[in-house]
């Protein structure tokens, strides 16, 4: 074999190994998801079987039907939970994004006293595990009478998300050249107009990704929500999963079905927004 064909064979082998590696990685990532979907469709006997039944023998939508049947027929108030989750996640995300935009812009553009200390402080709040806060939060919220309210959870999720959105959005505003806002001001914009007309559209993808992260955090959060909610007034979908646990039994099939129901909106939203997460939108703004 000459050197050229040797290299060609080598490259081909490398591609195959690369493909197998990727497949294995994706398998590890996707298997739990697939398992949840499968488990929601198969009878409990099969779910609990040892050794596991890899290929489902019989599939049915019973769990989904039961879920939406009324209380007493194996149903849970999915729609109430869904509504609570939606209200809490959307509102807290919007607020977190608004604060994150203001904060991120300030950190990216202005010089002020104790800037880096403040930034570090914001980041340090992320080092505290959320669950450690649940007891103090419970006491405070109990005193304030905001246990089991939308407001209470929104407050918690905004606080949870703001440091992160500020950090992320700050990075995106830093990528928008300062010259652009100045050019806009010379072109007749006020500071405020320059922001909305030029800087905001350019940082848009970053703000959208911050939005997705904030939304998913709120949508999936369980630990704090399980402490601070009590009834269908405010219980969110992750907390609703607990409805499938009884004193001695756990309805794994029902729980998996609810998990699938939970995942669908999050997945849809991510798909819609990810199109807009195109980086490099600012290319061509300055030199090049």
């Amino acid at each position, binding site marked *: 074999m000459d050197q050229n064909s040797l290299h060609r064979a080598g490259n081909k082998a490398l591609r195959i190994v690369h493909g197998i590696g990727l497949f294995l990685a994706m398998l590890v990532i996707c298997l739990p998801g697939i398992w949840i979907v499968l488990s929601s469709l198969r009878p409990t006997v099969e779910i609990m079987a040892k050794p596991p039944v890899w290929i489902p023998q019989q599939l049915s939508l019973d769990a989904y039907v039961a879920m939406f049947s009324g209380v007493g027929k194996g149903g849970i108030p999915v729609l109430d939970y869904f509504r609570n989750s939606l209200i809490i996640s959307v509102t807290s995300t919007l607020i977190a994004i608004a604060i994150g935009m203001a904060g991120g812009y300030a950190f990216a553009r202005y010089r002020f006293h104790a800037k880096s200390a403040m930034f570090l402080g914001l980041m340090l709040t992320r080092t505290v595990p959320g669950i450690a806060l649940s007891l103090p939060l419970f006491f405070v919220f109990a005193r304030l009478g905001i246990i089991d309210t939308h407001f209470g959870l929104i407050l918690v999720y905004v606080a949870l998300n703001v440091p992160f959105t500020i950090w992320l959005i700050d990075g995106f505003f830093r990528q928008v050249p300062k*010259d*652009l806002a100045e050019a806009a*001001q010379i*072109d*007749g914009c006020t500071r405020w107009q320059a922001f909305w007309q030029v800087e905001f*559209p350019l940082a848009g993808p970053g703000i959208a990704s911050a939005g997705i992260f904030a939304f998913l955090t709120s949508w999936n959060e369980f630990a704090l929500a399980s402490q601070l909610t009590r009834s269908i007034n405010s219980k969110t979908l992750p907390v609703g999963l607990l409805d499938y646990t009884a004193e001695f039994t756990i309805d794994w099939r029902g729980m998996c079905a609810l998990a699938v129901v939970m995942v669908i909106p999050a997945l849809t939203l991510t798909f819609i927004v990810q199109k807009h997460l195109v980086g490099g*939108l600012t*290319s*061509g703004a300055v*030199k090049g």
Partner: protein
Amino acid sequence: MATVSLKNLTKSYGPVAVVHGIDLEVADREFIALVGPSGCGKSTTLRMIAGLEAISDGVIEIGGRMVNDLPPRSRNISMVFQSYALYPHMTVRENLGFSLKIAGAAKEEMDRRVAEASGILGLDQLLDRRPSQLSGGQRQRVAMGRAIVRDPDVFLFDEPLSNLDAKLRTQMRTEIKKLHAKVKSTVIYVTHDQVEAMTLADRIVIMRDGFIEQVGTPDEVFRRPQTRFVAGFIGSPPMNLHEAVVDDGQLLFASGEKLPLPSQFKANVETGDKVVFGLRPDDIYPTGHGISSGEDVDVHQVELPVTVTEPLGNETLVFAEFNGSDWVSRMLNPKPLKAGDRVKMSLDLSQAHLFSAETGKTLRG
């Protein structure tokens, strides 16, 4: 169109002053170039005129109106940035029309003015592209178009050509000059490139460390530099500048070599004065290969060893050793020379410059 007037314009960042109370009057429709090395305060001055930088003291007037505290949008200026600062999310058409859109102009008016500007700059074919799909030169033109559309009182250019390659830079330089001839507006142009300043400007302002060193026409700053700094900054290749001591009608250099004191300075110096002697490469040339300045020729001849030659085709730069360092000379109608050759050089002392070694000011009467 309008005049611009800077009075005692000062900028400090905390205790650090970067522009030290400069005064400048720019006439209506004049093309002024602010030139100087980086950090001389020229860009800061421009940004203060634009309103992008608050001023610490002094007065800025545009068209006789004080604009010290007006925001950029109220000054009726437009600016071309070094980075072009095109809005990447808008097409060329939207970029050009942006200022009109903000001002709430009617659609027809907007279309007409965008078409006018794109006509002047040859952008007609590019109107629906985005900045990322344009070449450097095209982006540059869009940036200028955006400035024209506003029909401003004053155009401000902040090193607009420094991101272009050498060939394009020369080409755009010519376009800017043509543009100024067409739109006839007041222009303040910042550059660190003295060739740009010389070729474009009606008058040049040479700045250094936040002070104005000299204001004058390209001819004035080239032929009559007021300071040693200006002499060294303007002209390419730069002027040969060497310290000497006046010694009984002669200039005594550190190496012990001597040159006769140019007659035009005789009245202004005395024996013992420390001076800086300056001679442009055009005024020192291998005998028979230079341009004679015509009248008042005061040519001194010395034989010098050649160290390096740089042939440029129509001329050759000859580096010859005198006073322990290389002096650049311009040889027209060049003949082949090589390092080590001893060449008879003509020094046209009627064109020489003399500056005080202490103050750096010219000693011309």
